[in-house]
């Protein structure tokens, strides 16, 4: 993703724009005992009760959080 952004930055004249990537650790929740755990080695069996009914709650998607625009020029829309 970082190298793709570099290409786009150069090709689309995005100046000195930067891409800030914040890794979110993988986290899961047990649907039986509600324990929240970090699945080590991607093991999704609940470490506290052994249940197989668990759901990933974060860290398994890519989210575009925000875009920050800096400008010294006059705002074109105003």
């Amino acid at each position, binding site marked *: 993703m970082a190298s793709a952004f570099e290409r786009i930055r150069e090709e689309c004249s995005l100046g000195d724009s930067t891409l800030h990537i914040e890794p979110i650790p993988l986290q899961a929740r047990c649907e039986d005992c509600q324990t929240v755990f970090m699945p080590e*080695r*991607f*093991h*999704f*069996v609940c470490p506290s009760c052994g249940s*197989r*009914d*668990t759901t990933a709650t974060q860290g398994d*998607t*890519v*989210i*575009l*959080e*925000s*875009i*920050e*625009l*800096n*400008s*010294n020029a006059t*705002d074109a829309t105003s």
Partner: protein
Amino acid sequence: VTKVIIVNRDVSAVAQLKAEESRNLMAQQGTLVVNLMSSPGAGKTTLLTALARQLNAIARLGVLVGDIATDRDAQRLAQLVPAVQLTTGGACHLELPLVERGWQALGMPQLDFLFIENVGNLVCPSSHDLGEHLRIVLLSTTEGDDKPAKYPKAFRTSHVLVINKIDLLPHVPFSVSAATADAQAIQPNLAVFELSALTGEGIDALCHYLLEKQHKLSANFQTAHAW
């Protein structure tokens, strides 16, 4: 002047929505869409050939075959079932728009099963929803039993694990129980089938499972439709 635009959206949200639409559309027609993933050479085409031989007499099948180049796999399958080759032209996985074009090239027939043979690759295909109802990951005994631990996402996102080439078990250092245990730790709901697509051993159980899934899919839609 600094302006912050809060987006806070999953980058794959649009692709997921399209996949969901396609999944519903196929379900309405009673077509169970199956996405078959594996490393190159695990036996995807051989498995589809074996399944087609068994299911042809009782169900309407169609196959879309993904490859980077050549239409050899589609040619192999076309002797048995309507098959269309999807050539990615270098890409390492299939995406929904290419699948939709393949489905149109097939003539959009009324099917019970649409099998999609993904590009041989255990990494990228697992990140792309093709609008399938069932994702099968195929692992052959010649590849080594550590594949689930090394490529967790392929196993995490699948419904079914097929362990192929069990006829070679006496000759290769592959532990079915170790591979199964690792895969089910990663995806606790994974259904596991051990078979040899070449000899036909174990194919019956998988056919039975697929037929049951297809019956459920079409029964669900008929119920929903009647309401």
